């Protein structure tokens, strides 16, 4: 059982748990093999992650930044974000995600 976010899913992976939409309706049952079309449908219905078979690591870290991001601005904003989150446990995936969002915002505000 490995939880991967939508961007990390690939055709051929096999679901180990039902994938539901935001209202709880089952879109694709456990055991199904993912195809390109399924991934498009997931996107449409607001699915953000899926549980797949196999034992790779979970997607604990936020999605990587785009390649064209300003590296200098990123480093500068990074220090400010660290200060802001000094009272939060940096190992928690939710905190990683929030720091990431905060960083993105600072960089896009600066540019």
């Amino acid at each position: 059982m490995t939880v991967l976010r939508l961007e990390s899913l690939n055709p051929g992976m096999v679901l180990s748990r039902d994938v539901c939409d935001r209202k709880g309706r089952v879109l694709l049952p456990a055991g199904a093999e993912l195809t390109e079309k399924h991934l498009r449908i997931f996107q449409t219905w607001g699915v953000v992650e899926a549980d797949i078979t196999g034992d790779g690591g979970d997607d604990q870290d936020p999605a990587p930044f785009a390649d064209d991001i300003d590296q200098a601005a990123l480093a500068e904003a990074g220090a400010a974000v660290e200060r802001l989150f000094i009272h939060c446990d940096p190992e928690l995936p939710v905190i990683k995600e929030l720091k990431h969002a905060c960083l993105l915002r600072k960089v896009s505000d600066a540019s």
Partner: protein
Amino acid sequence: MPPDSSPPTLESLLHGVGAVPSLPLFHERLDEAINHPRSSITDISKIISEDQGLTARILKLANSPFYGYFSKIDTISQAVTIIGVQQVRDLALAVSVMGLFKGIPEDLITMELFWKHSIGCGLTARALATTLREANLERFFVGGILHDIGRLVMFITIPELCREMIETCRNEGRLLYEVERERLGFDHGAVGGMLLRNWKIPFRISEPAEFHHYCQRACQYPRETAILHVADLIAHALEFGNSGELLVPSLDTAAWNGLALSHNQLPMIIKQVDIQFADTIAVLQGDAGE
């Protein structure tokens, strides 16, 4: 407040100075009408419509992306029918509380920044609740609007002490609500909770506000409290306005785990809040200060 060596008590904050505003009488009438078995939508709409400023803001809000209805809502009775009585009542509360507090020293906080943080938190709480498929979403929005209201009471009644505590936080990199507890024995949540109870605001709204930094103490509405706690954290992380707190509060992991949200859902929630933020600010703060 005269310079005093002993820290003020919770009661003295709310009753000592008399500068703490009271809720407009109209809310009591509104509650009475809503709770009365024989009152109709027309009765309820009539009470709200008497306040034109409030009416205008509620209608603007109902027609903004905050709701995303396709047809135009142009009367309060339509709003009540479509959005629901409780919901309109909660919105009315959120809107009217924002105009109540005046005369807070500008070096402590500006009302604009304070309400930005509160609105950001309210929208986030509402978006979290939507994702969690909760019902009656407006209580989450109003919860966010009110969660730091205790701090406004403190800024009015003990400005010197607040200035000192904020200074301590700035110098030592600490969290304001922890310094409050150390210096006073209670935090702004407790002050807010007491104010809201004095105002006879329902417990489903006052309890989450009271314990948003103390999730484990919420006994009747732990889920609402946890949602508010997480929303506050996100509002800080996204740096919506300012409520006096300089840093992101620490996360109550039990509260977070209890919600069974995935961190992968956060980007979508943040996106949703961003879409609504500017419009909601424009509606609620558009002509603030009059």
